[in-house]
């Protein structure tokens, strides 16, 4: 395991590139993110947002450059890093033929948690699904799936949470619940969210990043961002085409 000295840095990305054949999905991406920050990543379709999230969450490896998450290299220290991160996707990442409780029990075993029953109960109550804990996940609505998905991601108390379009397909009530759940755990975690929703992304973030054609167009702290200027920059990137 290769810990860095800069322990206050949640993300350190240096010259990160990822190619698929001749196509550059990520092109020399560089930025640092402090611990406890909330990074919103914006960009048009095909800009490389999801690829960046996949590299940071160890689902794919970079072609060039390095990325360190919580001081751990995403390639060399991938297993150690996976113990400390969670992923909430627009896909629920849950088994439809298991109950809510069985899904969480399964992932508790995968993360080798001690006293998983207590933790599972606590999380099911937090996401307001305790009354449906024995129901099969295939009977859940989109909002319920997303709430359970949050419980799954928080099960092992990760330090950094990756969110891939978490609001996609949610009704306003389900969005409110997701907002409140994120607010509850906001202080103790670093968040990295990929989103198309400018207003939601800016509302939540402490830092914002715009990607276009796989490269960083803008990376700025929220306090230094003017929403109108940011929206104009974002709109300009949409015309830049895909990576």
């Amino acid at each position, binding site marked *: 395991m290769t810990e860095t000295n800069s322990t206050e840095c949640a993300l350190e990305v240096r010259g990160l590139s990822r190619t698929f054949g001749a196509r550059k999905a990520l092109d020399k991406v560089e930025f640092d993110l402090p611990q406890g920050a909330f990074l919103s990543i914006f960009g048009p379709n095909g800009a490389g947002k999801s690829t960046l999230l996949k590299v940071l*969450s*160890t*689902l*794919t*490896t970079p072609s060039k450059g390095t990325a360190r998450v919580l001081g751990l290299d995403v390639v060399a220290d*991938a*297993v*150690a890093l*996976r*113990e400390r*991160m*969670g*992923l909430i*996707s627009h*896909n*629920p*990442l*849950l*088994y*439809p*033929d*298991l109950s809510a409780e*069985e899904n969480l029990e*399964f*992932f508790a*075993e*995968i*993360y*080798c*948690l*001690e*006293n*998983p029953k*207590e*933790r599972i109960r606590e999380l099911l109550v937090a996401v307001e699904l305790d009354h449906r804990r024995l129901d*099969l996940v295939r009977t859940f609505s989109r909002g319920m799936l997303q709430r359970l998905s949050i419980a*799954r991601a928080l099960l*092992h*108390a990760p330090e950094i949470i990756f969110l891939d379009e978490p609001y996609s397909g949610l009704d306003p009530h389900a969005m409110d619940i997701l907002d409140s759940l994120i607010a509850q755990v906001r202080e103790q975690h670093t968040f990295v969210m990929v989103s198309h929703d400018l207003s939601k992304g800016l509302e939540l973030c402490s830092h914002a990043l715009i990607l276009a054609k796989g490269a960083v167009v803008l990376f700025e702290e929220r306090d230094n961002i003017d929403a109108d200027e940011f929206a104009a920059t974002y709109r300009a990137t949409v015309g830049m085409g895909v990576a």
Partner: protein
Amino acid sequence: MAPPKRMSGWRQFKAIIRKDIVMELRTKEMLTSMGLYALLVLVVYYIALSQAGANFQVRQIAAGLLWLVFIFTSLLGLNRSLVHEKDQGCLDALLISPIDRPVIFFGKAVGNLLFLLIVEVFIVPLFYFIFLGSQSNADVGGPVWMIVLALFLGSLGIAGVGTLLATMSVNTKGKDFILAVLFIPLMFPLLLAVVAGTSAVLLAEPGYAAVFWQMMALAAGYDTVMLLAAYGLYEFVLGA
């Protein structure tokens, strides 16, 4: 808040198998499709062989017929086992968890082996009673445990290689086609060994035991090499 414990591959391995069994008991997708397909093939065999005339000795080709059922039946199950993981992005949930990739491989392979063995438990006796039990020489031939050993070694190879190939093909567009195209040629050495071994026991001709052990050694060697290769390649195959 419960702190994570030191990762235990054995605990994760058991969790994957338990999850697959619970899901299969609930949906019965794999066992039903595999069982029905195997039954249908037996019916087709019965119709075809009933045209062959009274002098035709089914026993001469019984081992080949039996393994043909299992090879094609296993393809159905292997496809389903990984599609379950892929459907709702569950494979990604496993891949971002601190689990060694070979643990996922062995968990899925043992689950596939278990389901194939369950189908065999029903199909082998049925095959015997339909095609061999009614003949004048209704004995199995050699000892039954030899047949069981051949079935186990054959199924082990099918589950191991099949799980690796199903993982490779699950991300492709024509996954059913690709699995079949890769699976059958790769299985050829194992099929040769288990068909010859099973046939030797069913025919029980002089010196059959030596042929049987020779074939079982080939099957065991194939299983060992392929399982080790799958163990080594699984992380690469998963692409993470």
